[in-house]
């Protein structure tokens, strides 16, 4: 790739964007130096704030012509550094794309610009008795474009799926400035399912400028049951028993003692504070359906050794019980100056082994861990407590976190369930995938972005990086790519 011509690109961008649409001064650039993963910070070269699709197309073409990398950014709430700027790259903010374009209640679709907040979609369609199901914990702030880029999850994924399962169509600006529609308003589209591929592609394949999401009818009734257990493995087994009994809860969450106590102290949700593990199980649907399932869930939880089983007394109590779970991260955040949130997924039957290993390592590293678990879908969020002002503690925390993720891979799981790879977990990608898979990812990337200008350095590591990290998979004793240098 020829060296980027930043000076010429700057002059061209100033012509392409309206007044105030290109930020160049350090004080203006500062707010964009990081996303939700604030341990990584870097000032972007420039920030563009286009207002129209045509401006996005022109900006992307301009960057392509001058060899300048482009990092797209939504609300900046991501937890893996996917929107971390590049010092020689343009940060492309979609913040001004914040309109809801169309609501189609008959087909249960809403077409929105990528900067629209997740919760704003549900608010806009509430009058039709509909809502948008994926609910990442940052839903009051995070944007739909970012949700698609990360394939965001939430607490209702087991029953309602991730972002990819709730998106019908995307409009994508390619590196060539072409505007493509992927998917459509019908239930499928001809050709390859590029809409599925774009979900979770972390801004490496194109710039989203429009998203059509599927909507669901708001359930008549929702009710939550909490159950306390003396043992984490027992709680995990109880969760498995609920699912094996043929019940598909809307939400199925678990917290360990440290997380439960922190949440209780913070929001006074009414949790039993002495439990080794707390399970929250929410059912939704028609009242008759929910009532029938509640009895079965409670019976299974009791059979499996729950010491307390209790239904929410009323809607206010149900919301309070959820408030504790939803506030678990900030609640744990009160226990230490900093915390580091991990995002592995494991087949659920490994839960006991994984938590026991994490507890042992916690002693070894001298760093406490609180565990919050989307138990229904196996997505585990260990929160490592540390103090960034203590020399060496962040490095120790990252090393501990990396071991947890590699343990998830070893159990047949994954290094990231819903937060994305970004810059944060790029080295652990080397543990999850072999060289041939990584090469295939790079080939797919080149089909969209032959110059490698879209969010370079994120999500998929180079083979050289993996060799340096020392975690490259070796299949069948054959070292892949012997031509590569090893450091």
């Amino acid at each position, binding site marked *: 790739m020829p060296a980027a011509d930043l000076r010429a690109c700057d002059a061209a961008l100033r012509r392409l964007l309206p007044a105030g649409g290109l930020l160049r001064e350090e004080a203006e650039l500062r707010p964009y130096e990081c996303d939700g993963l604030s341990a990584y910070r870097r000032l972007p070269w420039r920030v563009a704030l286009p207002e129209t699709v045509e401006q996005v197309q022109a900006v992307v073409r301009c960057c392509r012509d001058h060899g300048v990398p482009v990092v797209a950014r939504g609300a900046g709430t991501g937890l893996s550094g996917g929107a971390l700027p590049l010092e020689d790259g343009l940060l492309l903010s979609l913040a001004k794309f914040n309109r809801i374009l169309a609501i189609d209640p008959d087909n249960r679709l809403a077409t929105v610009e990528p900067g629209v907040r997740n919760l704003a979609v549900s608010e806009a369609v509430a009058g039709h008795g509909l809502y948008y199901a994926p609910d990442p914990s940052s839903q009051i702030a995070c944007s739909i474009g970012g949700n698609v880029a990360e394939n965001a999850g939430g607490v209702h994924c087991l029953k309602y799926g991730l972002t990819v399962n709730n998106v019908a169509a995307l409009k994508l600006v390619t590196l060539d400035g072409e505007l493509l529609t992927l998917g459509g308003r019908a*239930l499928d589209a001809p050709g390859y399912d590029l809409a599925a591929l774009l979900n979770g592609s972390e801004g490496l394949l194109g710039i989203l400028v429009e998203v059509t999401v599927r909507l669901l009818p708001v359930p008549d009734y929702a009710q939550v049951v909490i159950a306390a257990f003396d043992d984490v493995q027992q709680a995990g087994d109880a969760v*498995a028993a609920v699912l*094996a009994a043929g019940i598909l809860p809307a939400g199925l969450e678990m917290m360990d003692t440290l997380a439960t106590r922190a949440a209780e102290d913070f929001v006074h949700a009414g949790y039993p504070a002495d439990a080794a593990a707390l399970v929250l199980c929410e059912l939704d*649907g028609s009242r008759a359906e929910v009532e029938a399932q509640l009895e079965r869930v409670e019976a299974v939880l009791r059979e499996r050794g729950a010491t307390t089983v209790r239904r929410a007394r009323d809607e206010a109590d149900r919301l309070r019980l959820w408030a504790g779970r939803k506030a678990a991260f900030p609640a744990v955040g009160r226990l230490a100056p900093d915390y580091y949130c991990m995002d592995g*997924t494991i087949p659920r*039957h490994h839960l006991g082994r994984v938590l026991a290993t994490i507890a042992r390592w916690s002693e070894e590293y001298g760093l406490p861990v609180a565990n919050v678990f989307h138990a229904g879908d196996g997505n585990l969020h260990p929160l490592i407590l540390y103090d960034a002002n203590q020399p060496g503690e962040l490095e120790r925390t990252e090393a501990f976190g990396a071991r947890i993720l590699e343990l998830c891979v070893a159990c*047949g799981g994954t290094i*990231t369930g819903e*937060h994305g790879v970004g810059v944060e977990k790029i080295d652990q990608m080397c543990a999850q995938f072999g060289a041939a898979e990584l090469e295939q990812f790079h080939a797919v990337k080149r089909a969209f972005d032959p110059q490698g200008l879209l969010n370079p350095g994120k999500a998929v590591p180079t083979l050289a990086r993996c060799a340096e990290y020392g975690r490259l998979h070796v299949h069948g004793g054959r070292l892949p790519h012997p031509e590569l240098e090893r450091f």
Partner: protein
Amino acid sequence: MNEAAHDKLDSLRDQVAQAFEARRPLAVTGGGSKAFYGRPVEGEPLAVTGHRGILDYEPSELVLSARAGTPLADIEALLAGHGQMLAFEPPHFGPGATLGGAVACGLSGPRRPWAGAVRDFVLGVSILNGRGEPLSFGGRVMKNVAGYDLSRLMAGALGTLGVLTAVSVKVLPRPETEATLVFERDAAAAIEACARWSARPLPLSAACHHAGRLYLRLSGSERGIRGAREQLGGEALNDGDAFWTSLRDHRHPFFDAGRPLWRLSVPPASPPLALAGDGLLDWGGGQRWLYTDAPAEQVREAARAAGGHATRFRGGDRGDVFQPLPAPLLALQRRLKQALDPAGILNPGRLYEGL
């Protein structure tokens, strides 16, 4: 992996690798139940059928992994024994239907609008790419955002991006009970009713209209279904399961016509399309089967104008099966094909020319 399966995988890998070296096209075959679907392929047959067997199934994990040549019927019987199902209700279209074929064809049955499509249930795949390299993407867990989602991309790619060798799918509990209701309605009224009912929290799981009757399936607990029936009315159909299976597999008498069959996929609430012919609506109006004498351009234009697309499902001009793609989108799909199959040897042309 047992020895026979290992040998079979090695032999598939060698065949693809040799075909890659020789730039020799391969026609990938499973059970052959959907051989009628897509454009014709000229190539040396590559049979995946023998590569069969369940790899992993723990009912409480709601995940099943199997080799791609495993018969769908075996998988469904195993799941049924544990009160579970493939919720996308893959059409079989014949006794030999395999898991790999179901994923490659990307077709889903009557439950699709409410449960999701095959692509929504694919969690991971093992493939041989067009160089014969064995690759695995996704996994056996429901939430996984590491790397590009190349597993879902295989759904509906008709084997043109990789030879599927194993698939992991999300499975779901079977509903405690199901009921089918019948209403006398014309097509327009049926579409309107489906849109209205779908916007309410009712336990719908299928909706089909044919010959003046709307068939509605409800799934859930006894109590939940009783509550819904009180709201909806309609007459109960006794052999509901047989009806929906015959619809899924095109054994319903509507499909006996022996004429070229169109499939139109449109936003479900679209009013009846202005196309003469005999039709049957599935997916609450989202999937419309049609026998028509109208020219292909007119059928495609009607589907496009409604926001959807039309496929020559069976018969007719097999060179012109799928709705033409806009040029820049087709170009991108060709580059993607090259990324996975650089020599263009995997089912070349089955989906579109150059794919």
